[in-house]
């Protein structure tokens, strides 16, 4: 009788980013301030990736950084801003320069597009977007959405095209070496998005033993079958938050927002915190242990 060797899908953050070719299409996980793949965004900037297309519901500093550094040229999304503070500063400038195009959907439409891709069907139906410019106006998709008459009820239904990006990038609570991932708290659209990608890279706050996962299989949010690569990436969403792990660093977020209002400010931020540091660990050292430890979630609160 044969014991199954545990598959080891672990690679480094650098190796993970190297997998993404220029021009690739990515599902980008996290929602709002929760679990954005921030460290992965930094590494894509360090490796000077270009011309990516990013699919997401609503994202914030993470995609603003990708925009500022000219990593992404197209977005299909529903929302971007720095919530509670203001408009995302780099995206504004890059749109004015013509360096970025955005195809607008709603959050539900995007989440369903990921579900449709994951389900292997070419579209999903929904009842949003009807009667609005979200259907009437398109930027670059030849067919952005179709309104059809339901063959059963006669009512109008919108079909939105499914998405199967080249890679799905998600940042989770914990994962084992085989790629079985748990996500604490809200899942946003990561459950669907992680299943939509042709290849899936899971970044996690911590790597846990596979027996821990297998002792509670109903806690698995993303099973190993979908996952190609696993990256251990503690504090990988900083300065944003991870449920049960750490809070956001509003001081850093506000500093980012203020400084990036000008191109020079953004260049300075990028040099100081991204391109000027060797890797994610050096970034964390720059932020400083004291600051990070203060942000740890205070049980029983998840923040």
């Amino acid at each position, binding site marked *: 009788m044969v014991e199954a060797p545990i598959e080891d899908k672990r690679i480094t953050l650098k190796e993970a980013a190297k997998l993404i070719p220029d021009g690739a299409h990515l599902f980008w996980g996290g929602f709002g301030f929760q679990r954005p793949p921030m460290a992965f965004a930094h590494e894509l900037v360090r490796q000077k990736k270009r011309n990516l297309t990013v699919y997401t519901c609503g994202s914030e500093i993470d995609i603003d950084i990708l925009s500022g550094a000219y990593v992404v040229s197209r977005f299909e999304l529903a929302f971007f801003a720095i919530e509670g503070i203001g408009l995302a500063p780099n995206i504004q400038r890059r749109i004015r320069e013509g360096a970025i195009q955005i195809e607008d959907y709603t959050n539900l439409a995007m989440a369903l597009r990921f579900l449709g891709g994951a389900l292997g069907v070419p579209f999903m139906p929904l009842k949003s977007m009807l*009667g609005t410019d979200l259907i009437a106006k398109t930027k670059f998709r030849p067919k952005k959405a179709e309104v059809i008459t339901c063959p059963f009820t006669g009512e109008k239904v919108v079909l939105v095209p499914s998405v199967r990006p080249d890679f799905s990038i998600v940042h989770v609570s914990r994962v084992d070496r085989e790629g079985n991932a748990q996500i604490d708290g809200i899942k946003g659209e990561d459950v669907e998005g992680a299943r939509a990608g042709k290849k899936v890279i899971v970044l996690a706050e911590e790597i846990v033993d596979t027996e821990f996962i297998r002792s509670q299989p109903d806690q698995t949010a993303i099973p190993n079958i979908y996952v190609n690569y696993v990256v251990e990436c503690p504090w990988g969403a900083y300065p944003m938050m991870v449920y049960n792990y750490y809070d956001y660093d509003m001081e850093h977020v506000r500093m980012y927002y203020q400084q990036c209002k000008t191109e020079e400010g953004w260049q300075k931020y990028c040099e100081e915190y991204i391109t000027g540091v060797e890797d994610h660990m050096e970034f964390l050292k720059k932020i400083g242990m004291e600051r990070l430890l203060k942000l740890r979630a205070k049980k029983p609160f998840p*923040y």
Partner: protein
Amino acid sequence: MDKNYAKLGEFTTLELMAVCGARAIKNGEVVFVGTGLPMIAAMLAKRTHAPNAKIVYEAGFIDSNAIDIALSIADSRLGYRASAAIGLIETLGLLLQGGHVDVGFVGAAQIDEYGNINTTYIGDFENPTVRLPGSGGGNDIVSSAKRIVIIMTHEKRKMVKKLDYLTSPGFLDGPKAREKAGLLGGGPSLVVTNLCQMDFDPETKRIRLATIHPGVTLQQILDNIGFDLIVPENVPTTEPPTYEELVILRAIDPHGIYIPRQG
């Protein structure tokens, strides 16, 4: 019951707006809100007349009982004593589009006289002056909630005859237009601004003055609006906050994150 109303000068306009929002929520209702004033309004409602209101945040928090102010709709703070923490398809799809949401709160960069909303572009679609955040879940909420409360500042450039971009559907071009388009929800029912409250004429589906905030004149309202507002004969003054409401409200946001303390 005799209400103990605060006097002009004892509350800020933002406080009044939050109180107006809270009063638009009935006890037991399912309320879909975002961060900012709507969150404060919903928290106030739950702590006053609507303790069994269920607050839903689109990131996945359902029946939230947050005790700290959240900066993001996905903020872990919103998970405190929630019924459930799931995801976007749950909140925007199963709960909202599934027909379970009584009232949704949204903001607007522009609205027109039918309550249509723009949160996407200012200026030309091809060469916009400002690119706004986009729909997010806004279009989903306005499409499918049974009624909608819009909270925004009252400015001529924001209340326009023609939107630069129609992000979320009010009554579109008038009566029956929502039904014809296939929309599920009831459409906008209330607009709360810093000057007044407005509702919608049931016949024409056009926006109509409902109450004027204390200390505000009709002329101020008309001077700051870009479309023809329906003004009924007798427009009452907005019911001011009670002292109880103010005390609770200030305890909800003690650091004045969304409602700065009166200067």
